């Protein structure tokens, strides 16, 4: 998982690139692969949730996400780590993170 977090003009912009086939039942049947897609993603800073996504297979393969949050409101600052985690339909989990630049 690739994560980038940048503080600019008072807000932190986060970019996440997760790795998953994001194959729903139709696609899995057609490609003869397993149904496999991320179902939930969470981003936290200092233990506080700043963003979440309940996801489905109609997101692109290797889903790309970009979100913004106000660090002051969650007591975050440059150098703090944005932690991102996800879980898929098979219970597989992944974690990643990056310090706010």
């Amino acid at each position, binding site marked *: 998982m690739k994560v980038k977090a940048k503080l600019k003009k008072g807000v932190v912009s986060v970019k996440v690139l997760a790795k998953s086939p994001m194959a729903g039942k139709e*696609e899995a049947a057609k490609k003869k692969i397993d149904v496999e897609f991320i179902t*939930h993603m969470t981003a936290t800073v200092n233990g506080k949730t700043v963003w979440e996504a309940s996801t489905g297979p109609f997101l692109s393969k290797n889903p790309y996400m970009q979100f913004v949050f106000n660090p002051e409101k969650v007591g975050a600052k440059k150098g703090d780590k944005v932690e991102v985690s996800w879980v898929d339909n098979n219970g597989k989990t992944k974690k990643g993170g990056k310090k706010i630049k």
Partner: protein
Amino acid sequence: MERRKFLSLGAVAAAATILPSAVSATDFRVEKPAAWQAEGSAEAIKALFGDITPIEGKIKMKAPKLAENGGAVPIGMKSKVEVTTVALFQDANPRSAVVVFELGEGGVFDLKTKIKMRKTANVTVVAKGTDGKFYSHVQKVEVSIGGCGG
């Protein structure tokens, strides 16, 4: 086929015990399963938010007028309205719901992602404001080569 299903059930059960609580905070797949099965956007929106009359004109959507790759259509959603939940739907695929974002404290309504679209269709975003009101925006996105495993 049966063995694989049995194994995956075990994996989900095992994962559920070790997942940090933050991961399962607001899981709309668990809370509103019908929304994810709905074929059309109107049905999916109703399953997710109930009977709502969203206000239009407050959300800006950035999407290509013509997407050349239906497998990765970039969608940007922005608004000055303070919101808690932002849901994205499309009428290009077998089911409408794509993703439901939940913003934390200090969340700013400025989101981007990439979605699959099998064909030209409307993309709809519906957001729930901290004021309890709903906001929406619909935009047609043309797709030249469909992308949903097809």
